[in-house]
């Protein structure tokens, strides 16, 4: 099996140089906190609950790049597929805390949960209050405790950012995001694994005519494997699953995020979008916002996920608030 090649200087320098690249393109909008793998807005905001996001790297632009207007105050980047350490997380939180506490938003993975937990304990001792809103949007898994955090993170972070901007206390912010995320559900599939740059080896093998259903974001496998279906059948399966998961009804309005895991082609995403629209139209479900792009990736994994966010007037305002992060540009949807 041939190796996967990537263009880098050394695997151990990837995270560092990615952060430097982001700073370099931002025209001063974001900076690193010392030598730490922490990106933050260069101008410290005051009088608001701070939003810190993060997790393992390798999923860029999420979480690392999503620092800026309408998104996080700081992000903390672990090594590739490895949670950041407590001291790194604490550095990020200290850098942006304004005295009103810090909301952490990150994915529901053992490593992230434990590292952010220890960081929260350290920060609590210093008098910095932290709260966590876990991203756990994976519709492929029924048990809420086991749900992974996948591409819906983009929406959850955006909603959290709005709450941090507009609500007064950490408790209110947390309550808003926790309520909002009940309306969020994501389902992913992949036909080819990504690989760790250190090894150049795909994280799983898969047959020439197979697809992994209910895919996670680290190359850890999905919930089942099946023969590669037609795009329309696959789209119908995913769309139906999400509609059922959120119990969507005719007249409901949703936002849809169609995320490219890495090497899906634009045409594949359009083919999926086409069929999804047909199904939703039939059911009277209105797509009032649509985001498409490689926002939450897993190296060169080939696949995609659909995230549905059921909207209400509050969530609509929050989701549609202006957002701009240097590494991605406007995040305005269609």
């Amino acid at each position, binding site marked *: 099996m041939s190796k996967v090649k990537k263009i880098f200087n050394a695997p151990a320098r990837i995270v560092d140089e990615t952060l430097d690249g982001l700073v370099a393109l931002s025209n001063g909008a974001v900076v690193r906190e010392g030598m730490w793998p922490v990106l933050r807005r260069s101008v410290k905001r005051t009088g608001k609950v701070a939003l810190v996001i993060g997790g393992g790297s390798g999923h860029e632009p999420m979480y690392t790049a999503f620092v800026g207007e309408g998104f996080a105050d700081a992000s903390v980047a672990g090594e590739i597929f*490895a949670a950041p350490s407590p001291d790194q997380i604490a550095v990020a939180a200290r850098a942006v805390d304004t005295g009103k506490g810090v909301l952490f938003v990150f994915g529901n993975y053992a490593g992230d949960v*434990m*590292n952010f937990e220890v960081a929260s304990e350290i920060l609590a001792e210093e008098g910095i209050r932290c709260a966590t809103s876990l991203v756990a949007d994976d519709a492929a898994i029924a048990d809420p405790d086991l749900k992974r955090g996948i591409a819906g993170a983009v929406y959850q972070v955006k909603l959290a950012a709005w709450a941090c901007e507009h609500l007064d206390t950490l408790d209110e912010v947390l309550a808003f995001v926790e309520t909002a995320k009940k309306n969020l559900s994501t389902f992913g599939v992949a036909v080819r694994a990504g690989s760790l740059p250190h090894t150049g080896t795909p*994280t799983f093998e898969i047959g020439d005519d197979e697809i992994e259903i209910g895919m996670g974001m680290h190359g850890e496998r999905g919930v089942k494997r099946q023969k590669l279906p037609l795009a329309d059948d696959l789209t119908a399966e995913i769309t139906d699953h999400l509609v059922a998961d959120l119990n969507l009804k005719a007249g409901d309005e949703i936002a849809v995020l169609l995320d490219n895991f890495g090497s899906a082609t634009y045409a594949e995403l359009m083919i999926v979008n086409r069929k999804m629209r047909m199904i939703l139209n039939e059911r009277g479900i209105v797509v009032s916002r649509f985001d498409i792009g490689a926002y939450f990736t897993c190296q060169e994994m080939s696949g995609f996920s659909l995230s549905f966010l059921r909207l209400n007037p509050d969530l609509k305002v929050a989701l549609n608030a202006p957002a701009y992060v240097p590494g991605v540009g406007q995040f305005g949807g269609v």
Partner: protein
Amino acid sequence: MTNEVLSAAELRARLLRTCQSIIDSCDLLCQADRDLGDGDHGVTMARAFTAAKEGLEASAPVSAGADFSMIGSKLMGAGGTAGIVFGTWFSTLGRTVADRALDAGTLAAGMTAAAQNVQARGKVVLGEKTMFDALSPAVEALTAAVGNGADAALKQAAVAAKAGVDATRQMIATKGKAKTLGERSLGFPDPGAISVALIFEGLSTTA
């Protein structure tokens, strides 16, 4: 040679070999993690134990507690699941052993506290197919053999850890990245458990 008390120098030598053994097992641990998780366990462990090794090399061996603590904080700083879990293990061990001489009883007490903290931090119980399924039986075996001295107890622990690794093959994962695999996780040993066995092997082996 049986050590009734492991001297700081002897422990240091064993710790350095343990670090090296983990570093050398990078590929093996990554492959195990590809079968069940995201394929990076060896990379994270190697990064963590390289930092630990460098930390050891930069300091004189003063006490067992200090060495364990130093390793704990280096592992903790390496990030990832492995960093926090193995870091919790060694940090707790260091804190508990502190500046006491490392006899079997002190070691057993430290390991027991460490296993408890790992369990609490990971919210993990036996049978979830994690490193705890190697750590817990190893610590029990060590505690049971405490009357035979530190060396013999560590050897028992290493044997139990290996058995623990084997036992994870038959488990369905409910924690960590493998938790979504369901029955597909059967047949593969847990990578974190393999690391535990490597560590006890390192700790129990004289040069």
